[in-house]
């Protein structure tokens, strides 16, 4: 989950998963999820392995954020989407490079590496995967 806590250790621990779109696969119920964590969100099993998730998918649903937390203010409005990746994994991520009046359910999207948030003007810049529409 996205927990918006200004924590340097948290962003450091998450960096591999956020930079490379690494999720978890449950060895018990076979579910895949993102980001990686030590226990399965579906069945609670602790038998989890890391998995490189596919970089392409489809936007299933989205919401537009007009009143973000103050650190995101210059970004408003921005889009948070529910994406189904090619292997069926569902993830929540920001949608970028698209206008709020152009975004549509069902569009094909691909993973891109972007600035996710900043822990204030003198703090750490967090990077991670967002999704943009595939142009063609």
């Amino acid at each position, binding site marked *: 989950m996205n927990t918006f806590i200004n924590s340097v250790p948290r962003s450091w621990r998450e960096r591999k998963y956020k930079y490379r779109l690494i999720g978890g696969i449950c060895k018990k119920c076979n579910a895949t999820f993102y980001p990686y964590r030590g226990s399965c969100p579906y069945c609670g099993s602790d038998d989890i392995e890391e998995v490189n998730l596919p970089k392409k998918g489809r936007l299933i649903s989205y919401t537009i954020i007009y009143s973000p937390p103050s650190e995101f203010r210059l970004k408003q409005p921005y889009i948070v989407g529910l994406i189904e990746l090619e292997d069926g994994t569902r993830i929540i991520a920001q949608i970028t490079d698209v206008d709020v009046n152009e975004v549509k359910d069902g569009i094909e999207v691909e993973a891109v590496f972007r*600035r996710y948030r900043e822990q204030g003007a003198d703090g750490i810049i967090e*990077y991670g995967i967002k999704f943009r529409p595939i142009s063609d």
Partner: protein
Amino acid sequence: MKIKDVSIIGYGAYVPIFRIKDSEIARVWGRDPKRVPVNEKSVPGYDEDSLTMAVEATLNALKRSNISPDIIGAILVGSESPPYAVKPSATVIAEVLGVSRIVAVDMEFACRAGTTAMQNVIGMVGSGMIEAGIAIGTDTAQGRPGDELEYTAAAGAASYIISKSGNDDIARFEGSFSYVTDTPDFWRREGERFPRHGYRFTGEPAYFHHIYSAAKGLMDELGLKPQDFAHVVFHQPNVKFPTRMAKQLGFNKEQLKYGLLSGYIGNTYAAASLIGLANVLDNAKVGDRILVVSFGSGAGSDAFSIIVEDGILSKRDLAPKVFDYISRKKYIDYSIYSKFRRNIVM
């Protein structure tokens, strides 16, 4: 400087999707919209910086290289717009690729830093210190609002994977030559947000003198003439300078055709000559010889002679081409531009 058995085995470029027309900038500042240096320039989105652009260019370069990142021994990033004053971009890129046992460092020399990174990786590969390395030029350049530079300061990145010559090479380095002097044509002091420049000083004693000297020096050393090159790429702060430079050195418009992109995307600073080279590689024939000459204020130029190898044929289509990025674009007005460039004070 002679180079032996060092080749480009992967290359990739990136240009953000957003563009602003120079006529729109001219409208805001009351300037004649027809007397502007480029048609339009690329603008990084709010969530982009020189590091995120370098990542996309490098992932494209890796797709073309057909190698596993494990053999990479160095990542050198040339930029004058790093996201942090202190904290390297190179280590973040290494983390994205999942490699740690490498040399990773950022380099700064205005618009020349990308080619200097390239020269350093060539040296490390050529000496046998590493098997392969990555050289990156990337910038999200800023001009002070209303300043002449605002019409051209743009964003883009290019990344090159350089290795010992093998049988799947895209192009091979033939030689390199550098030329530097202490010339105060453009600078930015610590803590200052925008650079300053020496107006007329930026032309003759800076851009033209250094590129001319590096190009001549390389051609003399290798015994080559302008007609030996199929393509030429110069640093491109606008359209006028590289066009005039080509003429002065004895190159024609046809040789400059693929390497001159500033009319479409503006001046991408440390990425400019390297994106130009990427577009040449997107279009060149096997056996073509390419001259690339960068320029960075302060001041210096690096020249390279590069010969296209037949690996280009199978690798060219493995990643998006420069014109795929140039043609996908969204125009923004000056208000959105100011928001993206964080020139609005909250």
